[in-house]
């Protein structure tokens, strides 16, 4: 009998199926396989055949195809990401316990404590099903943090949406916020920061990035490796179902014909539904397992499910691994090996456990009512071998799946239009000049979707749970206490102004880092490490690849100059609508440390009457990519503000001293919207008025709305002003008194602009999102 493609792809049905075993595959070399539909290129498929010396089985094909996908293999980004490592000096590495390559970076933060943090994207699922897409995004990043041995202690959510007024944004945004809140709140993780940005380019491609921060003792780091022959592989958490199988379901179609008309289970949903309760229990269960020393290695199940977990554990280990797929607890009937291996069902983890500890492991799982099953063991062979119904369906060198995937040096090209964009600078745009015009501009900007209050979003997130949140939204950075005895704490902030990155991907990425650094610094914390989530368009678009390469270089160079390492990150390509890519959006997260959280600096003014407001840094005429140009002229062109990392560092140092010595009672960095926006926020957050005086030589418009980097406004107690200004001048940081806090007045009074009652400012700033989203 000759094999037809249809027969060779036969699926499990009603028990009368034939298994596509390795033996069967060896006997049927010519069977056609739908590798292209699974996203593999011709030469990639040939390489797999070369590695195995035969055609892959269906299960192997499923494994290679997901593991060699862009998302899992970083095949287009690898050659560029290397640069992060090259830019990291030994000095920067000294506090790094785990870095790029692990599930998440781990940083020593002193007193025996370590912190792990990471951002991941869940962009596409969140467009299809905003609530569940966003929820499972949070779930996934939390498991990454758990896999490092840490207790997750906080989340943050950098978000990007299409225009605020668009009907589709009214569908996507509320669902995303509900999903993030629903999942994070139910896990008991305070949400301590994030971003909400609107731009046309995200209209059919919102960005839902989720960050998680975890804390552990520095000697408690868990690693994802399978070592010790005879050790058991235990899958625990939720059962494995048919959701999140997406593309692999083409393998399930008996009548697969290479087009979209096949029947069977072809249209399995690629979206998963999250179960935060199961994840919460899984967190507690994992922590108890770690505490009891019952785990040799551990890995979360995320993208690519068991394929990823088993191959990565085995690849990082010192032997092989054998898995019996019949042992995997399933939620659906009739799942075939490819489906079981590819399922992205949520809330699952995989552990390597010594045989003598299996009973203890199960005991802890029973206590938490967590399903746990021994599905295989570590072997002394080389290969990852997987059996199903007594037949071998996978027999592969795990490294070829997990680590030795294809690597591409994609063509990159600075697009010619880049020069046109640079030339189109904002100098000729009409500017406000009279007091009325300035006042109107200030209010219009405060109400604009990108600058208005985020309270509609953040009030849906619990930021109190666990009782250690010292600062959260709307302050620049979130600050958490990690040790109740010593008061030691950490700070995090995420930032990216993608308008800047569009104008100059190198400088824009540096500005993103500079802003996140500054946001951590204004809380009084010392920045110590960087993570990122690099959201870009198609990797096959040379202009996009150029943006990507520039952004990576910019970020790596800047972190070297600031002396803080990039400890990890995430890449998301193919964010585009048709052939239009999103604005290049390298979201940067910075982690900081504060020795004593009682010294944290809040954003709002009003601690004491009569305090001085000082502007730190230099204000230049810089409007390229500014919010002012965007809001009032719909303009994006020119060059972004200049980068001065030495200045950022100096500013950070001064703020740290200010916090330590009690010289600063409030601080806010200047970013989008410039000084005007910062003053609006400091007054409203502190529920206190202020009187601002323009420097004599200043152009009021430039002074109020320019977005020069490296600046902050601080409020300084009366008795400390001299000490503080002397500190600044000794260190060479420009520092100018711009006004006073007025605890009596309920208005923001700006010379040359007028007197704006806080009530008016408040309704302007707070009204926008509720009016749009209900």
């Amino acid at each position, binding site marked *: 009998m000759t094999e037809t493609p249809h027969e060779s792809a036969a699926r499990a049905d009603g028990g009368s199926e034939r298994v596509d075993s390795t033996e069967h595959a060896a006997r049927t070399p010519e069977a056609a396989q739908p590798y292209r539909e699974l996203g593999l290129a011709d030469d990639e498929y040939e390489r797999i055949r070369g590695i195995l010396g035969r055609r892959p089985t269906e299960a192997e094909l499923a494994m290679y195809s997901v593991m060699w996908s862009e998302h899992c293999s970083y095949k287009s980004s690898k050659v560029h990401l290397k640069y992060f490592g090259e830019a990291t000096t030994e000095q920067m590495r000294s506090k790094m316990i785990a870095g790029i390559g692990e599930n998440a970076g781990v940083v020593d933060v002193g007193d025996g404590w370590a912190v792990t943090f990471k951002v991941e994207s869940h962009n596409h699922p969140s467009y299809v099903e905003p609530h569940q897409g966003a929820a499972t995004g949070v779930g996934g990043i939390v498991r990454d943090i758990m896999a490092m041995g840490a207790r997750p202690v906080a989340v943050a959510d950098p978000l990007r949406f299409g225009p605020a007024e668009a009907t589709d944004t009214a569908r996507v945004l509320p669902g995303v916020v509900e999903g993030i809140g629903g999942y994070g709140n139910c896990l008991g993780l305070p949400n301590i920061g994030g971003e909400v940005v609107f731009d046309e380019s995200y209209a059919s491609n919102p960005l839902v990035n989720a960050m998680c921060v975890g804390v552990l003792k520095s000697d408690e780091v868990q690693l994802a490796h399978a070592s010790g022959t005879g050790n058991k592989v235990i899958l625990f958490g939720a059962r494995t*179902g048919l959701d999140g199988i997406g593309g692999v379901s083409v393998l399930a179609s008996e009548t697969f014909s290479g087009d979209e008309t096949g029947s069977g289970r072809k249209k399995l949903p690629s*979206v998963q*539904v999250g*179960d935060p*309760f199961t994840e919460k229990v899984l967190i507690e269960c994992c922590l108890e397992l770690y505490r009891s020393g019952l785990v040799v290695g551990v890995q979360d199940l995320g993208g690519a499910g068991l394929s990823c977990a088993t191959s990565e554990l085995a690849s990082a280990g010192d032997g092989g691994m054998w898995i019996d797929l019949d042992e995997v607890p399933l939620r659906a009937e009739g799942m075939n090996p490819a489906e079981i291996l590819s399922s992205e069902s949520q809330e699952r983890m995989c552990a390597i456990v010594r045989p003598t500890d299996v009973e203890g492991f199960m005991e802890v799982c029973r206590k938490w009512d967590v399903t746990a099953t021994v599905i295989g063991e570590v072997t002394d062979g080389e290969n990852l071998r997987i059996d199903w119904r007594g037949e071998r369906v996978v027999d592969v060198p795990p490294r070829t799946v997990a680590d030795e995937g294809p690597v591409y040096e994609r063509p990159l090209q600075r697009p010619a239009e880049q020069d046109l964009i640079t030339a189109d600078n904002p100098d000729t745009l009409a500017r406000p000049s009279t007091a009325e015009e300035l006042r109107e501009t200030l209010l219009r900007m405060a109400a604009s979707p990108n600058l208005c209050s985020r309270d509609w979003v953040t009030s849906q997130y619990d930021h109190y749970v666990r009782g250690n949140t010292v600062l959260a939204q709307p302050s620049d950075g979130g600050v958490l206490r990690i040790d109740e005895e010593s008061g030691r704490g950490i700070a995090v902030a995420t930032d990216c102004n993608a308008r800047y990155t569009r104008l100059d991907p190198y400088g824009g990425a540096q500005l993103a880092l500079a802003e996140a650094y500054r946001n951590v610094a204004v809380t009084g914390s010392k920045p110590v490490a960087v993570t990122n989530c690099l959201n870009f368009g198609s990797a096959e678009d040379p202009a996009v690849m150029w943006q990507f390469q520039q952004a990576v270089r910019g970020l790596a160079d800047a972190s070297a100059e600031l002396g803080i390492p990039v400890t990890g990150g995430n890449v998301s390509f193919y964010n585009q609508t048709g052939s239009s890519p999103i604005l290049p959006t390298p979201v940067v997260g910075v982690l900081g440390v504060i020795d004593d959280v009682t010294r944290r600096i809040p954003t709002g003014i009003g601690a004491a009457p009569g305090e001085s407001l000082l502007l730190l840094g230099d204000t230049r005429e810089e409007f390229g990519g500014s919010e002012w140009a965007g809001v009032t002229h719909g303009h994006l062109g020119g060059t972004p503000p200049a980068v001065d990392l030495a200045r950022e560092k100096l500013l950070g140092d001064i703020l740290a001293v200010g916090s330590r010595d009690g010289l600063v009672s409030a601080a806010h960095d200047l970013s989008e919207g410039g000084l005007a926006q910062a003053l609006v926020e400091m007054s409203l957050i502190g529920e206190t008025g202020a009187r601002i005086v323009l420097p004599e030589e200043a152009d009021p418009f430039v002074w109020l709305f320019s977005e020069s980097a490296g600046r902050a406004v601080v409020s300084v107690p009366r008795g400390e002003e001299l000490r503080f200004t002397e500190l600044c001048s000794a260190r060479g940081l420009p520092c100018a008194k711009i006004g006073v806090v007025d605890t009596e007045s309920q208005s923001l009074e700006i010379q040359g602009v007028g007197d704006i009652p806080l009530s008016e400012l408040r309704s302007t700033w707070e009204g926008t999102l509720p009016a749009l989203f209900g």
Partner: protein
Amino acid sequence: MARVVVDVMPKQEILDPQGQAVANALPRQGFEGISQVRQGKRFELEVADDVDDETLAKIAESFLANPVIEDWAVRRVES
């Protein structure tokens, strides 16, 4: 005026944590013999007579349910 019921249920292959929670809790309360529970939503609409079935289907498909993860059914009932 007609009364219309729209049932929205999680798709069979999609995880249904709500239904699962109920199923797990029943035996603990002494109720045996219930092997599976799925939980969905039920909408009751008061609908003007000129609203046709096609419109109702569109409301269910595009608004009350997300067909990526949910199935729906519309029926007119006596009110």
